[in-house]
């Protein structure tokens, strides 16, 4: 194979300087992205380890692997670590940090030092969370429902609350950085409708991060105050209302699920056009649907509380609004599918992950319609149906999108190509393992198995055994990419500037890019996704 002769190792952001200090005190958005990559991967495997323990416990109806309290701590910390320390930062902090300046032709984010502060806040929160987990953990569920969390739990609720409070600010600062960068630092000619839709998705995500996260910050402050000073804000025996906590908590936590899924949608919206060699279908609708998801996401939070005791009429209002928020997601799915029409589709690893994403996200979104229907929600909320629904969106959607994005931009990040066949194999394993893990849980949910159960009636065992089997396959599927990504850092083929023939400013600079991203500030005079005048990569080099 004619490998393009790569000039001797040019100076780029990786080899510009070495040493711990050059990494820990860097203000280069690309290095901060790698710092985030390492730290969230660490937390991803901790959360995954907890998940495996939970699944092992649920192999048998009786509670015979761990005690009840330990199991309660396992699912609580699985939830908290995965939500606050992996899903929310994953794509924005890693791919977003790396690519937002590159895609809009800027030299760096608007506030590089604040970007580093955001990582340090994340690390401080992470260390506090690790300390909390190692010295006793917390057993309130990731939702911290009162009055259990404020009055009845004797675990380290204050410490976990403070850790998540600090990680919230890391998320706010990332959002703030992105909004200002996208508004103020676009290269000349990069108008709003020439922006890659990855940028639109991150713009919408940042709106939610900015306007939602402070509310959970203040709620956690009130919980910590109530627990430390025995106030009565959420304690019903002292005049407080536990439902007020749920309102304030879900006001953030529902938009937070859109923080987790929107970036993955952005990633898929970049991958599908590239591997179909086609312009995205309906650019404006896809862009506007991201913003619509961000705004409508704030209208629907009480659909988590239909049986919690809220009034009948407000339940009707929130159910209707929840159907409103489903429409933009449907638009996106249809547009991705329509993009493939009359394309020239290649089945590289990123595209396989994109197929997986569209399929699983469609099923996740449709089961969301079940949960928004009031009659069905009464039966299936707080059961494994809900667990399956949000894992289809989070693991099937967000994590698939994250892995797809990692494969798609890995040549740009590391300057090396990952092994293609291994990549496809891991995509297949993840898809199979995922479905085997979570589809049985839909049936379990409708059968009525409640969530967070340490032991369960024997008739649910078969489906739980299937789910546990699937989880082991899924674990292997996730380990594979980490292995061959590390392997490719050393032995992977050197990556050219644009291995996929993709459109976007990040592919016009070298791989890996120089510290200041571009030799000369680019001037954009072409429309987004103009694949008609980008040559597809020669067949020879990219197998199949």
């Amino acid at each position, binding site marked *: 194979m004619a490998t393009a002769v790569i000039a001797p190792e040019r100076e780029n952001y990786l080899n510009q300087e070495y040493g711990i200090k050059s990494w820990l005190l860097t203000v280069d958005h690309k290095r901060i992205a790698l710092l985030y990559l390492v730290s969230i991967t660490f937390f991803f495997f901790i959360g995954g380890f907890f998940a495996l323990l939970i699944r092992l416990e649920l192999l048998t109806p009786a509670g015979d692997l761990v005690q009840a309290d330990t199991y309660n701590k396992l699912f609580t910390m699985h939830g908290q670590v995965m939500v606050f320390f992996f899903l929310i930062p994953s794509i924005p902090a890693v791919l977003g940090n790396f690519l937002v300046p590159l895609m809009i032709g800027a030299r760096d984010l608007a506030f590089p030092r604040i970007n580093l502060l955001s990582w340090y806040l994340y690390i401080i929160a992470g260390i506090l969370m690790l300390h909390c987990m190692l010295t006793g953990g917390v057993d309130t569920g990731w939702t911290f429902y009162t*009055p259990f969390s404020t009055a009845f739990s004797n675990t380290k609720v204050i410490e976990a609350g403070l850790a998540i409070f600090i990680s919230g600010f890391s998320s706010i600062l990332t959002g703030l950085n992105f909004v200002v960068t996208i508004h103020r630092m676009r290269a000349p000619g990069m108008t709003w409708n020439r922006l890659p839709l990855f940028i639109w998705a991150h713009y919408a995500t940042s709106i939610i991060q900015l306007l939602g996260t402070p509310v959970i910050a203040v709620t956690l402050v009130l919980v910590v105050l109530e627990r430390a000073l025995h106030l009565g804000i959420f304690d019903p025996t002292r005049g407080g209302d536990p439902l007020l906590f749920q309102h304030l908590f879900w006001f953030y936590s529902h938009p937070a699920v859109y923080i987790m899924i929107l970036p993955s949608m952005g990633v898929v919206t970049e991958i599908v056009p590239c591997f179909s060699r086609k312009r995205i279908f309906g650019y404006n609708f896809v862009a506007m649907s991201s913003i619509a998801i961000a705004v409508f996401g704030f209208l629907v939070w009480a659909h988590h509380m239909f049986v919690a005791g809220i009034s009948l009429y407000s339940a009707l209002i929130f159910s209707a609004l929840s159907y409103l928020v*489903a429409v933009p997601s*449907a638009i996106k799915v249809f547009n991705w599918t329509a993009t493939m029409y009359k394309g020239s589709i290649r089945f590289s690893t990123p595209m396989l992950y994109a197929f997986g994403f569209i399929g699983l996200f469609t099923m996740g979104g449709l089961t969301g319609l*079940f949960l928004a*229907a009031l009659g069905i929600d009464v039966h299936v909320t707080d059961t494994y149906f809900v667990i399956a629904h949000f894992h289809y969106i989070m693991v099937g959607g967000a994590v698939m999108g994250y892995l797809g994005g990692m494969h798609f931009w890995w040549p740009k990040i590391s300057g090396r190509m990952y092994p293609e066949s291994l990549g496809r194999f891991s995509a297949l394993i993840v898809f199979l393992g995922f479905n085997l893990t979570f589809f049985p849980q839909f049936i379990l949910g409708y059968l009525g198995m409640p969530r967070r159960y340490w032991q369960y*009636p024997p008739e649910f065992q078969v489906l739980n055994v299937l789910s546990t089997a699937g989880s082991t396959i899924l674990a292997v599927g996730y380990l594979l990419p980490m292995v061959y990504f590390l392997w490719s850092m050393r032995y992977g083929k050197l990556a050219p500037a644009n291995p996929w023939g993709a459109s976007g400013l990040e592919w016009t600079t070298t791989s890996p890019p120089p510290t200041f991203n571009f030799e000369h500030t680019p001037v954009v005079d072409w429309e987004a996704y103009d694949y*008609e005048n980008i040559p597809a990569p020669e067949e020879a080099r990219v197998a199949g």
Partner: protein
Amino acid sequence: MFDTFPLWPARASTTAGSVDALFIFLVTLSAMVSAAVFTMIVVFAVRYRRRRGVAAEQIEGSTALEVTWSVIPLFIFVVIFVWGAVIYFKERTPPRGATEVYVVAKQWMWKLQHEEGQREINELHVPVGRDVKMILTSQDVIHSFYVPAFRIKQDVLPGRYTTAWFHPTKAGIYHLFCAEYCGTQHSGMIGQVVVLEPAQYEAWLSGGGASGSMASNGQNMFQQLGCSTCHRFDTQGRGPNLVGLFGKPVQLEDGRVVTADENYIRESILTPGAKIVSGFKPIMPVFQGLVSEEQLNALVAYVKSLSQSPTGAAGGPTVVPSGAPPQEPKVQ
């Protein structure tokens, strides 16, 4: 080991039928939409896979298509919303005249008490074919009363009543779960709902060690705690006349009008200062902490029995207010 391997929950109540109908409709709808999307992806992937010399044809998009696949889902969603809301509305409005069961949830057990007085722990015996309304409260944290076979679930909040109801249609033994995480033994806080044929139910009822119906227990508490000194049944007592109070609107001192439901009676017993009936002085002592949940339930049952028409009392002996003839009470 896998003796039973059900794939569909038992259907043992009227709401179960309607919930299943909507569920099956949604499953078929989702299956169709998913099938459509998946087949389209597979067909496009195969039909338009990369072939030498065949370039992709750029398509900008079509607003007409975008509008159609926004508006059509919206219509379908409206249909689903209305259908779900109708079921929910029925589930949240218990029918009149249902037999009442007072449920007290406590960290990791269910204490149930029938109107006729039977007390049960983690078990509920109900006859087929009669509406059962549950009045739920919790002594500590939030629990959730969940019977999958009846498709009903209702969070049980400490400090107030929540209600749920069902109409059992099939005899049998069904699971009772706690569905809201409540601590260590959350998964141990389970029980059984035993639906009996009416004949068997009467046998069980008589066999049970009923120490007098809740209303009669409530009446004893009413005398014991001295409520009858102020709440007399002729009209000039220092407290409002409670006969015929339940379910009626009550005019408050600060102008608001509230309906006297279970929560109003409970709040008026525990924290009387919250809502003062107009024309009365706030002299009622606070009973918060002096009355246990069971005693409170008995008092509420007694006050409710005062307003049931003398003949219509469901099952329990009719309680004729002592002394005063039951003339039409003047409700302010």
